[in-house]
């Protein structure tokens, strides 16, 4: 894990409320693995006070650059959406546990929801560049067409790709999880990797559990330190006996779906 100053090379609006930032940051670009994130200091001052975590969407090792895809949801992302190229930012990273990749050729399914697509783009690329490349099927769901930000970056890295939107404005109409049955029924899927809203992940996990397919999810939680020190970013995990909590920043953000206490995770949802 490095702490490093990185220059913002490009900022691009890729969809309404969605931005892609490219940083010149060779040390992190070289070490990063799919599923890891950076903890970014948005401002030199105290507003906002805490860093913001973003999954690494992409690295270009020869260029020494890395890309982040984000959606504007609050003050921090608002500031980033207006950041001028040439500005220097403080990045901690790469942080967290990456997606475990198979040692042998397998058929894998990626399930992305909204900006959850970011780490899966990086993963898709890595899976196909493995010594034993995987066959990658990609599913990408969002509320509407506009929110399928960077779908091209995902689809071009997949051997098969299907999109879904809740309003039917692009791809199949419905939830991305509605597509799972078909994928599984066709057979062949040996692993599932998913990132997106908790409700979606819970459903992916449920279906994988039922079908006994290995599944990893990338989770989010409010973070302070980002390095495992403050115990602020925990999620509940299953286990014998009492409730146990693991840190998203250090033990995750990637967790085996089977480890997560989905009941507690979703009890909280509206």
């Amino acid at each position, binding site marked *: *894990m*490095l*702490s490093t100053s990185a220059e913002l090379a490009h900022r691009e609006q890729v969809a309404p409320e969605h931005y892609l930032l490219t940083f010149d940051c060779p040390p992190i670009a070289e070490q990063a693995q799919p599923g890891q994130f950076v903890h970014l*200091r948005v401002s030199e001052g*105290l*507003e*906002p*006070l*805490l*860093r913001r975590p973003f999954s690494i969407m992409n690295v270009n090792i020869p260029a020494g650059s890395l890309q982040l895809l984000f959606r504007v949801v609050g003050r921090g992302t608002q500031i980033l959406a207006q950041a001028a190229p040439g500005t220097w930012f*403080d990045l*901690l990273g790469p942080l967290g546990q990456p997606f475990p990749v198979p040692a042998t050729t397998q058929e894998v399914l990626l399930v992305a929801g909204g900006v959850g697509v970011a780490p899966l783009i990086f993963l898709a690329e890595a899976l196909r560049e493995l010594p034993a490349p995987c066959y990658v099927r990609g599913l990408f769901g969002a509320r509407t067409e506009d929110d399928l930000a960077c779908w091209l970056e995902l689809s071009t890295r997949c051997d098969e790709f299907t999109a879904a939107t809740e309003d039917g404005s692009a791809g199949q109409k419905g939830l991305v999880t509605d597509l799972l049955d078909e994928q599984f029924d066709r057979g062949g899927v040996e692993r599932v990797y998913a990132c997106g809203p908790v409700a979606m992940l819970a459903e992916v996990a449920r279906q994988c559990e039922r079908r006994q397919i290995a599944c990893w999810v990338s989770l989010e*939680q*409010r*973070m*302070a*330190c*980002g*390095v*495992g*020190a*403050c*115990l*602020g*970013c*925990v*999620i*509940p995990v299953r286990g014998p006996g*009492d*409730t*146990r*909590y693991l840190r998203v920043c*250090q033990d995750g953000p990637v967790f085996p779906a089977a480890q997560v206490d989905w009941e*507690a995770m979703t009890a909280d949802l*509206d």
Partner: protein
Amino acid sequence: MDLSVEIAGLHLANPVLVASGTCGFGEEYAGRVDISRLGGICTKAITLHPRAGNPPPRICETPAGMLNAIGWQNPGLEVFLAEKLPALRAYGVPIIVNVAGETLEEYVELAARLNDADGIAALELNISCPNVECGGMQFGLAPDLTRELVAAVRQATDQVLITKLSPNVTDITALAQAAVDGGSDALSLINTLVGMSIDIQRRRPVLGNITGGLSGPAIRPVAVRMTWQVAEAVEVPIIGMGGIITYEDALEFIMAGASAVAVGTGNFVEPTTAVHVIDGLREYCIQHQIAKITDLVGAARTGG
């Protein structure tokens, strides 16, 4: 130029500690911060038995501050002694062990068992944690209970005893005096202010625990004020904390009467904050021809 300070016989190479709960047991920051440069490390609160802590969300950002409700998640005394302490010792800096319990007996047992452990510089009695249902803060809100608890722990340990005070009180000096009367060698202050945030979308509190402890620059004026008041009221050394990000912030506490300071939330903003504070204090002393940092302790009180 001498940055070293003494806290009740405990020698610190410089007056800058990292605050309890914000640097775990050191390991997470090892390799990225030169821990050996710190004045000392206050550990995350240790309890007798392992604790799972509070349900998430546990933290929430606020203007120039944050709320936390970790709730004493820690591996318990056994694991601390067997695994964490040996690793901590390797950094070669004073280790101040923050201890917490639900009952007086738990505090006493913790103190007794830590008394025999090697390489502990001091105990920091956490009687001010706002994030657990019973125990912790209750002791820190009433002078009588504070005096009684400190006195009992004092019996159980030869180590330097630091009592960490809660700011959630009407009169901080009464609590400070009670801790000193009970036999505390030093005081650290402040712990967090009890606060809460509401998620207006979901129409309920943001934190799983409903309330949490407010820390960061937002609370610095309260922390400096309490440091000033306590320094006036008691003779023992004070470790001041609350919102320190820069060496200037640290100087506010020192000039108000703190002999040492601790960086808490500042570590999250930037892991090297404490090291930068140390560098800044050194620079300041050189520029202002201050021979010993201790000459600045309480300087704002005397007009010094």
